[in-house]
């Protein structure tokens, strides 16, 4: 675990501005917040985030659809029992069940995709300050050489942080 | 623990934790044995059924059955397809034979009375003790010179066993054999004998008739030989193309047969006789009668002009003429008279009137009419139940052997049957169940069920040709019981002397086989067979008897106006009770499967719904819905029926097929004893009847009183299977009208 510097702020816009500036200065800044700031960040110079999860969802849906479809058809073909005078390959219930499995698989893959993209579960990475999950906003710059400390701290101080801290394998 | 059980426990555990374990076994079927024997009979192959031809003894029809036996146990009863009476069919009661055989309440050991008579306290004794006690009593009686004070009261007997019983009694020096059963055909036999000269019930050829005029004969359900006639009914309706017989049912309360009839004529109770005679008069008047003595007939029947009879019988005059016209013009036609008519105080007259009708329409001796049968055994009309009760009450009966009949249940309180039997010195009861009569016995001898016993029968009514049937045991005895024949033989041996000398056979099976040598001779004569007796015997056992469809009995059947004049000069039958105080005629009829009460101890029969009301496990009183509305009686409400002789309470069933001035109740329920299934179910309506017996035949008349009906406040606890009898316009059981049907026939051709 490398070192990092975290700046804590009371206000969201300060945080985002600090992050923008850090980005301009060529650092990879991570914003921590207790509430989602997606809109604000995307409207800022941080830019739009890539939307990878849709591919997971697509895989899940297609998988669920084909699973439901093939599953109902193949299982009824495995043991042919006529019932109700209806065809063995009956489309109506097959489509209905496929609909349900599409959703089921879609939901599961969304969750899976969320975990993959959000890099969860993770128990060794910390957020360095518990406050960022409750009531503070934070900007973190990680993995940096010691000579950059001053600059980063300066940028962070520009936006009125409540605290700027150097982190060294610190427990949250 | 099996996997499934484990999962069951898991299921229970999820719900109630340890409770599942506390309750233990969840819904495990009882463990049964694959083979009931330690060392099985070599004949027994597990899973393979043996079929034995035998007879059903649940009623007097004498249907032949095939008994399915697997692993030494009776599994099912089916009609014997070769048997001429039932032709492979069997009624509900007959099919319940296994439930009599395996009834949990069957008597399993001979019993000896320990407490006071009537208390029903008995101790089990051995057969030796039981037989020697009976024999000692009979010997003592003989020694004291009172041999003629030994009586036998039995259900109507036929065939070899009747001969055995007669021989037994006569060897003891007495001829006191009384036959009793509630529905015994005494009136029918008497009417046939006196007016037509027949000594047994003829074959009513319902099968081939085109117009059947039935006076209260519930022939598809309870009358005389229901399976024979049901089969014939089916064929009358639909067997021959273009020949659909019409059924007209005359009865105040629509019976099961009446429900299937094309026309229901709800004549006034007791006036069927008058109606029949007025139809007869109309036949003569309109010139439909083609025989001789027209004037004699006219004068004999002149009392019953339809104009007058219409009022008495409550049937429009026009309808009487219509019936007469149809009855005479439709060829062949047939009139029959059943238990409703014969159960009046003057039952013989109505039945005689029916004979007159058949004679006048020319139905006797023709196909589709009345066909005579070979001779049967008719009862001694002097020996009615009333005579026996009278003798007993007067202390003339020292020893009474009761064979499988239950007069205590089937006679009213007014008959004082219990008191009379209590005055009898010694009562031996042969029975399979501890019924109301058995409770009064000193010694109870448990009988075999008919599937364990030997026997034979000459069905009466027979089938129009010689027919003799055999009963054989299908399974070994389930308990320490004996057949009635074996009991008599054992007692005879123990009595010794002349009795033992006359009845030497080691077992009833031997006795029966000996008796069948006559049949063998007859058979030889008829079909000129070359069989040895043993082959004949074995073939008969296999087939269920022997019969000879060729040798039809030709017999002249003629009704003379004078015979008719005598029998039919009495007008409508009497009902006890004043019409003002007791406004309703009270009609009793045998329940379709409990009959006179004998079927009430069979669980299947208790749960089999009555077809007309769908009531199970109890009985009811039928009241016309309009009457009920007037009296403020709801369906299922408890009502009290009071006759001048007592009262009884039963739930009401609103029955559209009954005259508004009539109430009806089925016989068969209301047992005080007779096993767990019968006991305490419903009420016994016979109790409140007057003890009226036909003077000529000694038959007990059940339709003989008027009653009044008063609603009780309580719910009657009627249990019926139907939701509603209203089809709600859904056209479920679809119908076509006769004219439409005839059109169909033409188009089909």
């Amino acid at each position: 675990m490398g070192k990092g510097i975290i700046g804590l702020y009371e206000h969201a816009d300060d945080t985002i501005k600090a992050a923008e500036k850090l980005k301009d200065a060529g650092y990879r800044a991570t914003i921590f917040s207790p509430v989602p700031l997606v809109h604000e960040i995307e409207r800022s110079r941080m830019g739009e985030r890539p939307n990878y999860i849709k591919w997971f969802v697509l895989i899940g849906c297609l998988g669920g659809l084909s699973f439901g479809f093939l599953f109902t058809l193949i299982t009824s073909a495995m043991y042919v029992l006529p019932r109700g005078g209806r065809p063995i390959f009956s489309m109506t219930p097959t489509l209905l069940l496929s609909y349900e499995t599409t959703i089921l698989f879609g939901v599961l893959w969304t969750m899976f995709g969320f975990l993959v993209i959000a890099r969860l579960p993770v128990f060794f990475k910390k957020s360095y300050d518990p406050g960022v999950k409750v009531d503070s906003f934070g900007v973190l710059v990680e993995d940096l050489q010691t000579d950059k400390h001053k600059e980063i701290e300066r940028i962070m101080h520009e936006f009125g942080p409540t605290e700027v801290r150097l982190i060294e394998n610190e427990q949250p | 623990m099996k996997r499934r059980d484990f999962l069951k426990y898991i299921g229970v555990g999820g719900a109630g934790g340890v409770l599942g374990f506390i309750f233990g076994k969840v819904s495990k079927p009882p463990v049964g044995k694959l083979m009931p024997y330690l060392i099985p009979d070599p004949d027994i192959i597990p899973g393979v059924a043996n079929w034995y031809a035998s007879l059903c003894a649940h009623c007097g029809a004498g249907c032949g059955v095939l008994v399915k036996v697997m692993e030494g146990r009776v599994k099912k009863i089916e009609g014997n397809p070769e048997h001429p009476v039932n032709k492979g069919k069997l009624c509900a009661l007959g099919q319940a034979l296994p439930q009599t055989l395996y009834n949990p309440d069957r008597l399993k050991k001979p019993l000896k009375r320990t407490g006071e008579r009537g208390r029903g306290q008995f101790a089990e004794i051995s057969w030796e003790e039981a037989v020697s006690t009976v024999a000692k009593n009979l010997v003592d009686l003989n020694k004291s010179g009172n041999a003629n004070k030994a009586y036998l009261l039995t259900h109507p007997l036929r065939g070899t066993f009747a001969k055995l019983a007669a021989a037994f009694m006569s060897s003891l020096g007495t001829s006191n054999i009384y036959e009793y059963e509630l529905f015994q055909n005494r009136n029918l036999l008497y009417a046939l004998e006196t007016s037509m000269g027949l000594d047994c019930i003829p074959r009513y050829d319902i099968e081939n008739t085109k117009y059947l005029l039935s006076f209260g004969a519930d022939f598809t359900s309870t009358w005389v030989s229901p399976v024979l006639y049901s089969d014939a009914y089916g064929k009358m309706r639909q067997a021959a193309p273009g020949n659909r017989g019409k059924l007209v049912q005359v009865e105040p309360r629509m019976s099961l047969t009446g429900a299937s009839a094309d026309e229901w004529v709800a004549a006034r109770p007791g006036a069927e006789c008058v109606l029949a005679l007025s139809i007869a008069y109309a036949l003569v008047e309109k010139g439909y009668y083609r025989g001789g003595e027209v004037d004699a007939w006219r004068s004999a029947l002149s009392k019953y002009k339809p104009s007058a009879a219409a009022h008495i019988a409550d049937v429009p005059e026009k309808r009487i003429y219509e019936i007469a016209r149809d009855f005479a013009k439709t060829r062949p036609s047939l009139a029959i008279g059943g238990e409703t008519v014969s159960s009046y105080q003057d039952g013989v007259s109505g039945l005689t009137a029916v004979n007159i009708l058949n004679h006048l329409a020319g139905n006797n001796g023709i196909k589709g009419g009345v066909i005579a049968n070979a001779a049967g055994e008719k009862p001694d009309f002097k020996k009615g139940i009333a005579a026996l009760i009278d003798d007993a009450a007067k202390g003339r009966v020292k020893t009474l052997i009761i064979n499988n009949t239950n007069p205590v249940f089937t006679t009213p309180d007014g008959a004082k049957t219990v008191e009379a039997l209590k005055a009898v010195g010694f009562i031996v009861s042969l029975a399979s169940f501890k019924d109301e009569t058995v409770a009064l016995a000193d010694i109870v001898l448990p009988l075999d069920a008919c599937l364990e016993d030997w026997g034979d029968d000459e069905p009466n009514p027979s089938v129009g040709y010689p027919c003799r049937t055999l009963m054989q045991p299908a399974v070994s005895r389930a308990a320490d019981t004996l057949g009635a024949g074996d009991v008599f033989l054992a007692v005879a041996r123990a009595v010794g002397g002349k009795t033992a000398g006359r009845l030497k056979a080691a077992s009833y099976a031997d006795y029966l086989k000996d008796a069948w040598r006559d049949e063998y001779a007859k058979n030889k004569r008829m079909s000129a067979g070359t069989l040895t007796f043993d082959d004949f015997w074995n073939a008969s056992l296999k087939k269920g008897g022997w019969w000879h469809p060729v040798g039809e009995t030709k017999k002249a059947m003629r009704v003379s106006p004078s015979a008719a004049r005598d029998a039919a000069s009495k007008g409508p039958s009497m009902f006890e009770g004043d019409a003002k105080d007791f406004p309703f005629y009270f009609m009793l009829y045998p329940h379709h499967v409990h009959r006179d009460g004998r079927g009430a101890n069979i669980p299947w029969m208790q749960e089999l719904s009555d077809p007309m009301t769908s009531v199970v496990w109890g009985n009811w009183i039928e009241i016309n819905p309009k009457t009920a509305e007037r009296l403020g009686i709801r369906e299922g409400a408890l009502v009290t029926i009071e006759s001048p002789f007592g009262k009884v309470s039963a739930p009401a069933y609103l029955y559209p097929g009954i005259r508004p001035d009539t109430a009806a109740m089925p016989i068969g329920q209301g047992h005080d004893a007779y096993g767990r299934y019968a006991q305490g179910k419903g009420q016994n309506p016979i109790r409140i009847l007057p003890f009226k017996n036909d003077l000529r035949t000694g038959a007990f008349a059940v339709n003989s009183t008027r009653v009044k009906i008063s609603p009780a406040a309580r719910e009657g606890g009627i249990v019926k299977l139907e939701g509603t009898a209203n089809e709600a316009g859904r056209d479920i059981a679809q119908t076509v009208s006769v004219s439409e049907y005839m059109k169909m026939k033409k188009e089909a051709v």
Partner: protein
Amino acid sequence: MPAVILQLRKVTVDKRTYSEVNKDILRLMTKTGPGYYAALGIVASLAGILFFLPWAYQIYRGQGVTGLNVPVLWGVYLVNFVFWVGIAHAGTLISAMLFITKTPWRRAIARGAETMTLFALILVALYIFIHMGRPWNAYWTMPYPNQRELWLNFMSPIMFDVFAIGTYTTSSAVFLYFGMIPDLASLQHQTTGWRKKLYSTLSLGWRGTDAQWTVHGRATMFFSSFIMPLVVSVHSIVSWDFALSLVPGYSQTVFAPYFVTGALLSGLAGVMLMFTIMRWAYPFLTKYVTDYHYDRVGALILALSLVWSYFTCMEVFTGLYANTSLELEHLKFKILTLPYFKLYFLMIFCNSILPLSLIFKKLRVSRPFMLFLCIFVLIGMWLERYLIVPNALSRKFLPFMWHDYTPSWVEVSITLGALMFFVSLFMVSIKLFPVISLFEVKEDIGIPMKHEHRKDGA
């Protein structure tokens, strides 16, 4: 901008406000008075006595202890099954539908509604087992082959149920947990002992970075898009259990939308009832679930009630229009026969007439009135199912087999006991998990900005 929420927003948004939210919820979760224990004890023991004991008795003796008979083979258990599926719909309505339509007031009540959904679905599953003849074989309805490679009859509406309700339960559980991750991460720092361990494990190491929030937001969007059609399909499928049969009174094309509308109506009433009781027990919740919520939900209930009334009329109307003995007898039995006559008009009163009062804002924001109304709507919706499920079977095709149905004590007891079980589950859960979504409420309060105000939006 909604007035009521603005009121809340006027409070300076700063650290104190945010941590106050956490403190409030933590207080709800950790500070437990004797009253709670007493209530939980009573409710849980009632659940045991009224629910589990009779159920064990029923498993031991057989389904015969119920009041079911041959034409009426679906009784109160199926009524409860449908009813609880309906209740389960509220959570999804509030969290998914209102998320997609960006309705801001959903945030405070969404979590509670979702929790309700999950527990209602647990009851639904229980009722499936309760109503089975051989519950120890319930796993046979799961899609797996038996020894002879025979699978299941996917043509059966019951099988549709297995899939729909299975999917719904899984999805709701996933969605509920998913939404809770940031909150659990937030709480892990403010608790100690087993709670800390539990929350830090369950929060999966959520850090609250912008990347995580982004994917969280997108995933929520997808979840909502999945769950919204799912909700519609689930209750439609439940209605097909009935509608796909031939039974008069069941075989109705109107059933799918009718059931969905009814479900949403009862679900909303359930949510409001729950929050009203919680607000009474924990007065500080009034800060989060405000009159504004009552106002909005009241309006929604009114709208749904009107739609429901329309479908109810249509059900009767189409039956009358068909003019067959089957439909007419069914309607006659349902509407004109005692005691169903009374029940039917009680239902109309509860679901159509009473909610009309919600046109008055005063009544919408009146808590006692809403409490009263929600209870009545729930009773009415239960009656609606009761009047459909056993009643239609009482008047099937063959009049000879028309038989009425009265629930036995076991059924009544299990119905009440299951409700108690639901309440006790809920009571335990509010102590274990935040019943109000922390981050969403914080969003609702507003994001602290020094220079600009954020436009409201999801």
